[in-house]
């Protein structure tokens, strides 16, 4: 299974400037583990204490993973995953 993952500018230093990469995993959690094994360090930018970082948004197709079970969200062949940093501040 190969899932296309779109990488935001701020994380492209991890992916040698690739805007999209292929990763594997039947759940979001597994996908992040796989991404981190290909691009060491990227996992820490997505997770904090084992949970999704509050100001990183991850989408499976068009849906925010927070509405799909978070790290338990299921991923199937043909899905695409998009990572975007929140645009937020004080």
């Amino acid at each position, binding site marked *: 299974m190969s899932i296309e993952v779109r990488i935001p*500018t*701020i994380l492209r230093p991890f992916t040698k400037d690739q805007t999209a990469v292929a990763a594997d995993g039947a759940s979001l959690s597994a996908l992040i583990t796989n991404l981190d094994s290909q691009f060491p360090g990227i996992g820490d930018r997505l997770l904090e204490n084992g949970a999704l970082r509050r100001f990183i948004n991850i989408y499976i197709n068009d849906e925010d993973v927070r509405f799909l079970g978070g790290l338990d969200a299921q991923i199937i062949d043909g899905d695409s995953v998009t990572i975007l940093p929140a645009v*937020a501040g*004080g």
Partner: protein
Amino acid sequence: MSLIISRAFVDAIVEQSRTEYPDECCGVILGPVGSGKASRLKAMVNAAHSPTFYEFDPKDLLALYREVDEQDEEIVVIYHSHTETEAYPSRTDIAYAGEPGAHYVLVSSRKEIAPAIEFRSYRIIDGVVTEEEVSITD
């Protein structure tokens, strides 16, 4: 580095900050990819509806990035207002700044300086804030 921006966009951002007061307002200016030109202003909803915080709604954020990709554009400016403090990035602005290529524009509508307005621009990269000149064109 400096930000070149039209008077019309400056006025529109200032107007939006007044309309949405006391909440912070926010939005982006887009431009053709690679051009760095601030060409198309798009006001965004502050999903936090707060005088001390702003956040693009996650659904709007995805739609924005899709639109930018489809139109071969990039995000040139990310702006928001401060309603009670100066137009300088707050600690949270710095912590969450996720677009190293964007100009971060801050507008302050705090009462002490009314009816004047502060309009300033910064780069925020890896936690480092660098103010830049703003050139307003007619």
